[in-house]
């Protein structure tokens, strides 16, 4: 089996590209690693400091791990990501000092509480019955995984209804001491997929639109596939059908 993927993303309207605080990995269709593939998206919280770099570290940590996906291995990956972030932060703070831009008083509280982000990770592994793939996913926060087969939505993870989105989700912190609640909310699911199946990994703003459309009996995956992404997102924002937020969609096709 082959797996193709493409990620489309846009920052919040009014923000610069450099202010985009979602993250995704891999950046291009990945090579399979002995019949397995990994994908992840993360949504850095807009009201926390350096959440973009933290989101980037989380998606890379998940995708580079070779350990089978379980709740326990996801916690271990997050634990290692917090260490990687600490090392990155030290370098960042040194660079700020060197460039004559030391941390200001208004940044200190945000740095003290740490960065926050979601994590949604998907692993596809060869070897399911009928020449299919087995898939496993973990999630903290409100990023979403959708599986579509023959024009039907067959999986919606971890948010099932559009009304379940909140502006205050529990997220993963770069400070390990703050992750007890996040770990208690860590969700795992698994399934199988067949040739022709599609997966979508999305951050919350577009996922909420996707679920609302599906609840209305529509097939939002068709609109996603058929439209120019920037045009679609602009229209949805303009018509008030999607919250103005960073938007990320990773589309995966199993062939």
């Amino acid at each position: 089996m082959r797996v193709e993927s493409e990620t489309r993303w846009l920052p919040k309207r009014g923000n610069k590209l450099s202010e985009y605080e979602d993250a995704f990995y891999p950046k291009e269709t990945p090579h399979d690693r002995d019949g397995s593939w990994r994908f992840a998206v993360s949504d850095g919280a807009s009201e926390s400091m350096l959440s973009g770099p933290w989101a980037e570290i989380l998606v890379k940590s998940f995708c580079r791990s070779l350990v089978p996906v379980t709740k326990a291995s996801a916690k271990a990956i997050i634990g290692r990501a917090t260490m990687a972030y600490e090392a990155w932060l030290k370098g960042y703070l040194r660079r700020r000092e060197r460039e004559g831009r030391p941390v200001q008083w208004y940044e200190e509280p945000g740095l003290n509480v740490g960065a926050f982000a979601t994590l949604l990770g998907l692993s596809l592994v060869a070897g399911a019955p009928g020449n299919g793939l087995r898939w496993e996913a973990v999630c903290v926060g409100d990023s979403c995984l959708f599986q579509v087969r023959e024009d039907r939505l067959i999986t919606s993870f971890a948010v099932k209804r559009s009304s379940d989105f909140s502006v205050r989700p529990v997220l993963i912190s770069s400070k390990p001491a703050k992750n007890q609640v996040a770990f208690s909310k860590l969700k795992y699911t698994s399934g199988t997929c067949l040739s022709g199946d599609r997966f979508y990994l999305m951050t919350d703003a577009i996922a909420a639109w996707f679920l609302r459309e599906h609840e209305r009996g529509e097939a939002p995956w068709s609109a996603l596939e058929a439209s120019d992404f920037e045009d679609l997102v602009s229209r949805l924002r303009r018509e008030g059908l999607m919250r103005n937020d960073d938007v990320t969609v990773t589309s995966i096709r199993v062939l």
Partner: protein
Amino acid sequence: MPYIAEISRGNPSCFLFLIDQSGSMRDPFGADPSKRKADGVADAINRLLQNLAIKCAKAEGVRDYYYVGVLGYGHRSGPAFGGALAGRELVPISEVAANPARVDERVRKVEDGAGGLVDQTVKFPIWFDPVANGGTPMCQALTRAHSIVQGFIAQHPDCFPPIVINITDGEATDGNPTAAAQALQSLATTDGNVLLFNLHLSSHKASPIEFPDSDENLPDNYAKLLFSMSSKLPEYMRGIAEEEGFKTTENTRGFVFNGDLVSVIRFLDIGTRPANLR
């Protein structure tokens, strides 16, 4: 449904603080009699500005989600910022953050992650020192606020409605402020009416009361008057207030007696806020 406009750099909102600097603010502060009410005012405005700047801070600087003004009223009335901001009515929050009069350092105990406590030095910016002099021309301050907010709305007609926060002991000396307060609250953007919240710092030693929905338990007529002048919390703010542990009803007003109004800053929605941030 009003009060849903996005607060962004392209469509900023406005905070205008009115601070009572009259002679009566020399009297002891009921919540802490070792302090004067003027100390309570200075502490409240400094903490409000500090928290607003922190809320708008990102790693590359403070984003101008708000324009901020501070009007003092007492012996002298008018724009109260000093230094580089002196004389200006409304200032982008990034400039407020960059120009405190000084930054003090305070030591506080924080958890060390291993069950103990360690001292941590925290920077505390000061824009305002206590002032107590002259009468209490609150009506005049509210009228001046009306003109400033009207000007802002003319430039930002679709913004999240400006919020005016009046910090006072309530003892106006230029008449009953009700009409001026109502005129201010009648101003509106396409997203809703201007919100007027009152922080009452009194010499009365009654327990603090935060965001009440009736004036039943308020200790004196000054508190009752300020309560009646305060806007009801919009539905979305009530939602966040409930998540913060406040009990609210549809009559809950933006009024605090001898307590902490800084929580209002947390009621503002400028993006995703982790539930486990604190």
